[in-house]
């Protein structure tokens, strides 16, 4: 039982990095498919396509950030050894990781779809690049909110 708290906390960190990362990979994949289609016809659109394709990648970074935050909180990064955690504290850290894990996963996929649509838009109207970035960026808002929630929750958890 004494390792349960630590296990729960690590499981949370793993979920944050993994789910948000999976979402980003799918999102970038979807947008990448659209970018490849557009660039087959017009290779000059590489720059615009790349920016839009990269947008769903941020959720993966947010997940990784939260995972680092948790590992740091557990004392696993400095080499000083893990702090002792009750199962209750472990569960709190696990819960703190859920917002970015779930929202990051899902929002990255939808942002990828919106990016793909925006890529198709700039294929027809290259002058609308600004608007094309704003549309998928709206989805980003909720990933940022989830990141903030996870950070605030983690800061509130008392360990050690």
């Amino acid at each position, binding site marked *: 039982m004494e390792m349960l708290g630590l296990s729960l906390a690590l499981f949370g960190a793993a979920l944050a990095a993994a789910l948000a990362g999976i979402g980003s990979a799918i999102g970038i994949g979807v947008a990448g498919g659209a970018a490849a289609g557009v660039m087959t*016809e017009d290779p000059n659109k590489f720059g615009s396509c790349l920016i839009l394709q990269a947008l769903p990648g941020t959720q993966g970074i947010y997940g990784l950030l939260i995972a680092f935050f948790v590992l740091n909180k557990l004392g696993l990064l400095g080499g000083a050894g893990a702090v002792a955690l009750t199962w209750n504290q472990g569960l709190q850290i696990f819960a703190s990781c859920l917002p970015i894990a779930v929202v990051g996963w899902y929002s990255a996929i939808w942002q990828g779809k919106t990016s793909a649509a925006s890529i*198709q838009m700039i294929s027809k109207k290259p002058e609308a690049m600004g608007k094309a970035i704003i549309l998928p960026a709206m989805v980003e808002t909720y990933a940022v909110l989830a990141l903030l929630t996870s950070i605030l929750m983690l800061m509130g958890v008392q360990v050690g």
Partner: protein
Amino acid sequence: MSYVYAVARLRGMENHLLDSAFFSRLMDSATIDDAVKALGETSYSQWISQTGTANFDKAIDSEILATCEELKSFVPDKELLDIFRLPYDFHNVKVLLKGLFKVRGGETEGRRYDLLSKLGTIDTEELTNAIETEEYGFLPYGLTDLIPQCWQLWDATKNAQAVELLIDHQMFKAMLEVAEGLKMPDVIQWVRYKIDAENLRGAIRLSRMKYDAAKALPFFHEGGTIRPDDMAKLLNEPQETWSRILSYTDIGAVLNALNEQSDMKASLTDVSKALDDYLLKVLENAKYSMDAPANVLLFLLSKEAEARNMRVALVCVAGGLDRDFGRRLLK
């Protein structure tokens, strides 16, 4: 299967479609050579340089064929292309059978291979061999059973129009089967609307011929959203009331528009144009989706409309026909 790549690529290809302003300019060309010069920067120029200006019809077919081949390389479901190409197969069957009817009737010049289209899914040589040697076993889309039925009907009635109708019935049946096999609701719906449009076109034609409604049922195809019975009943009513009778259907709106323009007496060409526009509009919702398979069909129909416009424009220029009349025919 994901259509994100395919639809994005189609969006890029759409940029190369020629617009009505281009065709209007093309029609202003004084000679066919001037028109060919105007085509210099379009994808048609490569084909015209191969076939020569006199054979621009073949050049236009080559352009559509090349487009189909290109799409085949990246569209996940090839059957979507078959839905577009299948009518050309049935057109070829009609050409070959009619030719053989004439040959068997004693006309030595009956065969018209020049009317065969290469746009079908079945190679024209294979199809010709199959029909001439009566070995239909390998033919798809129900042609194996259809062709012997056509011969039976011809032997019994010597009525080429009845044979054509039989072929058309099978064509729409095959189109619907292919669409249903794809399990794409938009595409199935489009095929059903296409059957409605064809039935409505037939109804208008029959009505103008004052055809007896009781005998009209065989002219209508099964599979549309409007039952053939209901289509046949329209013939008992004045054409002006059809839009009200069909107001429960989407195609009723087309009639409504024609009525509003007091154009119900318009030429069949104008009615056909309105129905073709309607069939394009049905698919236009797909434009708002980044991965709707119906975009493939929409692109192909747009390309076909472009090819048709090209044909109209070049025929007008080559034949020195009235340009205003030609412009009216543009889609």
